[in-house]
């Protein structure tokens, strides 16, 4: 498809209506996602109030340096995504392709660093369910902390993986010139999703890594 023309689906009156519907649909989906993570954040809040000292101590076992690097990596990936959306809107093909590729590379880098952290926790027997040292002091509360750490970052990582796959598809279609300034809804919607996953991490990082860092 050399000319980028959007197909108008039968149920819509015009492309404008179709674009607005798709955009609203994505926002509502993100609201669902917000509540999905919301339950995990609630659990975190409950247990942090139940075990404040133990959470602070367990937080020190996380590698804040790697977490900080990952935060920077993810923010830069969002920059790539923003560049891609801008490129799609203005017809800047190079910017679009570069932005998407940057998001994919940095998103993958995030996953690799996260994997290294997970591996370290496994080595240190801090992986509830697989390998956990119940002989350590405050084992129960620490176990709850690490369970929440893996649940929250794990659900986040699943979302990021889906995001990377999504952006790969968008990149492929952009390469095939499927988007134009008139039609680039998929780029915008994947951008919304990407930024949402990014923002979730922005909250996860201080809540998990930085509880006790100022001491």
């Amino acid at each position, binding site marked *: 498809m050399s000319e980028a023309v959007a197909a108008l689906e039968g*149920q819509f009156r015009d492309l404008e209506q179709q674009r607005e519907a798709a955009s609203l649909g994505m926002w*509502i989906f993100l609201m*669902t996602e917000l509540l999905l993570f919301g*339950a995990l954040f609630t659990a975190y809040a409950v247990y942090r109030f139940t075990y404040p000292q133990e959470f602070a101590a367990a937080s020190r076992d996380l590698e804040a340096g790697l977490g900080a690097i990952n935060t920077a990596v993810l923010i830069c990936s969002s920059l790539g995504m923003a560049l891609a959306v801008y490129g799609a809107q203005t017809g800047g093909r190079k910017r679009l392709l570069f932005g998407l590729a940057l998001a994919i590379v940095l998103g993958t880098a995030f996953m690799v660093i996260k994997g290294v952290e997970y591996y370290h926790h496994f080595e240190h027997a801090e992986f509830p369910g697989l390998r956990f040292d119940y002989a350590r002091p405050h084992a129960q509360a620490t176990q*709850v902390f690490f369970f929440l750490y893996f649940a929250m970052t794990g659900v986040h990582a699943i979302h990021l993986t889906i995001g990377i796959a999504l952006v790969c598809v968008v990149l492929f279609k952009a390469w095939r010139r499927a988007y134009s300034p008139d039609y680039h809804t998929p780029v915008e919607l994947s951008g919304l999703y990407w930024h949402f996953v990014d923002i979730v991490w922005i909250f996860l990082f201080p809540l998990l890594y930085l509880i006790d860092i100022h001491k």
Partner: protein
Amino acid sequence: MTTNVVETEQNYLNVSYGVRSWLLTTDHKRIALLYMASITLMFFVGGFMAVLMRLELVTPPGDLVTSATYNKLFTMHGIIMVFFFLIPSIPAVLGNFLLPMMIGAKDLAFPRLNLLSWYVYIVGSVFTFWIVIAGGVDTGWTFYTPFSTSSSNTHVIPMTLGIFTVGFSSILTGLNFIVTTHKMRAPGLTWFRLPLFVWAIYATSIIQVLATPVLAISLVLLAVERAFHVGIFDPKLGGDPLLFQHFFWFYSHPAVYIMILPGMGVVSELIPHLARKKIFGYNFVCFATLGIAFFGFLVWGHHMFVAGESVYAAMTFSILSYLVAVPSAIKVFNWTATLYKGSVSFATPMLYALGFIGLFTIGGLTGLFLAALGIDVHVHDTYFVIAHFHYIMVGGMVMAYFGGIHYWWPKMTGRLYPEGWAKLAALIVFVGFNLTFFPQFILGYMGMPRRYHAYAPEFQVLNVMSSAGASILAVGYLLPLVYLLWSLRYGREAGANPWGVKGLEWQTPSPPPPENFAVTPVVTEEPYNYPSAAPGVPSTLQEAEVV
């Protein structure tokens, strides 16, 4: 006015034939029928379990099934009826069919997503069937921890995954409906010209989108805790079992409103149309709908009065629960006021609507008993609770679903159902329902606990009454299955508008053409805009069909 007397006219049923054309359809009307067939199957599977329970409870000792089997029966009955019948019932069947027609659209905003929702539902249902065959689950539909994570020896993990799956069907349907209501309305159809059914479906969809993900993630945490023996809810491992209850009811109390708001929406259509009268207080009904959806999110703690939540939390939840009664009562008053001096037709859908008002009122008022801290301690976990929520869910939602199915049956199929049989069935359902569940209020108040397969001999008379009622109720539910299927072939042709009512869905042939309207309609008036109570407005119902 268009009619469909021409045999060859194209409609959504005859536009294409074959299994493929149904399994790959994106037409909201066909997907509605797919849902209808699936949930009907689930309804009778869940109903069969209820029949076994009522049979067991005819005699005081546990002689028909063991207590372990009985635990599985009430668990699977609850899970199937709540997640696989009630939640999809009116939204996925009537909502799917009617929402685009009522707003003058060709389809939902995302037709393929709509089909995907049905497949997701089917995957969840197949899971459930497999679990039933494999031996079931015995935790109760509430999955309370730590029993569900460390004690129960049944198929808890696959069941939570089945519910997790079907939850996404619910979320995606809700998302689709919200976007459709916002973006697909016909020219001139402003928010306050929307039929009240659309408002109800809209409010329900918001609850589905916001509440369901919380249940989804809680069930995942539960499954992980059970599978890997880690502690998040298990107190042995440092977890908090109350947290699970909070999460569960944060979804499952709003879910009660997923299970009643659409029913209220149906009744808000049936009453003004079949009384030929403008709805009394349209705006009040709208805001009451939104109010119920909003307050529904703030009352979940009233399920946990005796579970160990703080007394201040309990008092707050109690007061908030009372507040829900206000918008609910507004609706009941408005329906009643609409009937006043209307030309009330007593066709079958109206019988169901009137039944709904009465039974919902009883269910709602006994809900206030349960929201009161003192009384709840007395009747908690007794048959009083069972009777209360069955008055809402069966007496309310199922009655409304049957009323809606009858009212829109001519539109969906192009055929009239046999009015005489339908009235008889409605009467049987009403009598059977009350005989089944009213004795349970008394049983519960006298102290008979729920979820036991044996009971003290002094409760036998009321239990036998309840079981007898259940057998009558079963007949009442089987009858429509027979005569509605019969009418598909032998029912009289309905014509576009057999009820002679307003409403966009009736301004197009029955069954509707694939694109719903030949020309996109333009809306110029409020809904239910009947001439103000002109005396002697004839009830133009299908008199000939009335036996």
